[in-house]
């Protein structure tokens, strides 16, 4: 069983999964590692680690600035892999998922899957790699047992969804709104119906992300999904130099969803 499967299997006992997103090297490598460890300690079940990119097209202002802060520190891909390794040495169970843009992953060429595996990475989310373009990328990752986590959006129709599900693994990430990270989440019912629809077509766990910034929203979203992703709000604490507040916030989310 993979680490991701294990996390969601505990879900049989109805525990909802808390996924956190932070950017590697934001505000610097050392703090970023400490933040990740704090997140685990305060209840994060899966770490999504952002790979900073010069052109983060799907991010709102808060996460854009996180990418810029990390790049100012000259974070290299090898630093990110090292960061994952260090987390993995201290924690054998928490799944690590790298989330970023295609050009970053391409920079490792054919060594990508192997390097990810060696760094203890479990999955990859590529924001600008839709299903249609992902076949060889998916197969290469599979060889090293790395899951390619699919993003599903409000505009994904059922025909397309069925095709995507045929080559999905790990979990599914439902993007709750049409927009960028950090946007306002308005239509709960629409999200609920869509998630129900997805769950009726697959056994894979479905987590909901984008626009979740507080415990009440997290609770609502978790009530019909397998878990939630929170990113912008955590990074907001980093931007405002209030990282000590991250732990309590994370704990409050974890409590709210279960």
């Amino acid at each position: 069983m993979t680490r991701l499967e294990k996390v969601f299997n505990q879900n049989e006992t109805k525990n909802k999964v808390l996924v956190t997103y932070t950017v590697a090297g934001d505000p610097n490598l050392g703090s970023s590692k400490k933040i990740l460890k704090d997140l685990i300690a305060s209840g994060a079940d899966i770490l999504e680690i952002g790979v900073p990119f010069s052109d983060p097209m799907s991010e709102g202002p808060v996460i854009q600035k996180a990418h810029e802060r990390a790049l100012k520190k000259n974070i290299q891909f090898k630093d990110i892999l090292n960061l994952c390794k260090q987390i993995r040495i201290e924690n054998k169970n928490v799944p690590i998922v790298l989330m970023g843009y295609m050009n970053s992953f391409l920079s490792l060429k054919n060594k990508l899957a192997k390097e990810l595996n060696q760094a203890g990475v479990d999955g990859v989310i590529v924001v600008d790699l839709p299903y249609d373009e992902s076949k060889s990328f998916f197969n290469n990752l599979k060889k090293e047992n790395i899951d390619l986590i699919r993003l599903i959006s409000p505009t994904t129709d059922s025909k397309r969804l069925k095709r995507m599900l045929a080559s999905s693994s790990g979990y599914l990430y439902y993007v709750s709104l049409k927009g960028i990270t950090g946007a306002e989440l308005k239509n709960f019912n629409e999200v609920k119906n869509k998630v129900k629809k997805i769950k009726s077509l697959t056994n894979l766990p479905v987590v909901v992300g984008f626009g979740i910034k507080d415990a009440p929203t997290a609770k609502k979203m978790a009530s019909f999904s397998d878990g939630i992703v929170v990113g912008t709000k955590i990074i907001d604490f980093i931007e405002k130099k209030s990282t000590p507040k991250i732990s309590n916030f994370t704990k409050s989310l974890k409590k709210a969803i279960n």
Partner: protein
Amino acid sequence: MKYKNLNNYAFPDKEGRFGEFGGKYVSETLITALEELEKVYAKVKKDKSFQEEVIKDLNDFVGRPSPLYFAERWTKKLGGAKIYLKREDLNHTGAHKINNTVGQVLLAKKMGKKRVIAETGAGQHGVATATVAARHGLECIIFMGEEDIERQALNVYRMKLLGAEVCSVDSGTKTLKDAMNEAMRDWVTNVEDTHYIIGSVAGPHPYPEIVRDFNSIVGKELKIQSKKEFGKYPDIIVACVGGGSNAMGIFHPFIKETKTKLVGVEAGGSGVKSGKHAAPLSDGKVGVLHGMKTYLMQDKNGQILSTHSVSAGLDYPGVGPEHAYLRDIGRVEYQSATDQQALKSFHDLTKTEGIMPALETSHALAYVNKIAPKLSKSKTIVINLSGRGDKDMFTVAKEDGMTL
């Protein structure tokens, strides 16, 4: 790789690719919009009444066909090949960009979109978009990098007069690529009622095809005009390459006419060796940005490098995927011209022909300035004079040490 036979040249393929280049590297939310655009475009491409509507606007609103002008004094001065200018600077709004927006706005209406957005560098595409939006009564938002807003102030004001909202983009390098990021962010948020009018043969499929098709009126006209003017197709066609729309527009109808040499000129900035330039086909690596696989200026971690060019319209780290393919198969030759060479050619053409070219276009002129004297007088060169230089007054004055 060298091309053998181009008789069957028909790109993009079904996957939206030109060889390995192109594709649709966008977030899942945009896929539906791109598929809709693809479907609607395939339909109107064959729809006679739609095409007639486009042609009518190109004739009566834009003022086409644009003349093919013999630059007699400049030819004499250089003392070699005969030089002709395809006068896209005479189009309404002053550049080739309007050929594309006239078509895309009709597409937007066909899809029932009420709002159009665009990115712009030099402001020419922004003005061309704001113009057609005004003509059709659509809401219009233009994204423009903070740095470009400064150096193209005249065009910013033009857009505002036309009723467009100009959004200043202060992320990243504050130039064209960042404006495009921001336009993508807007599009993903407002995808239901908004059409994104991309301004070059760049971006995800089907944009490189759509923008090429609308601009290829330039090459089609040239085929007729050159036969009439000098009894054959040109020996050489030269165009500047930013994203590559004016170049692709004039090249595309000639791809199978292999006796005609095609040359694209990128922005060499302070020189390709200096690293301060915007010439991904001369000094870039294959990667993915803005929805397409193409040559990009990037570092070893895949971070996009900041570019440098005196011309805002060429200041872009990528290039349209069809250019990447034409480069690899050797059908088009890509060269570069530096800021200084472009500025010199700007002055040369202004003084010898009474035509003030855009700084983007001046890069193509600079290349011709170099090769024309070495060619025999029986040869003909056609330059795509993609735009006029009024918008560049402040930049040129600054480079010349003047304040206006």
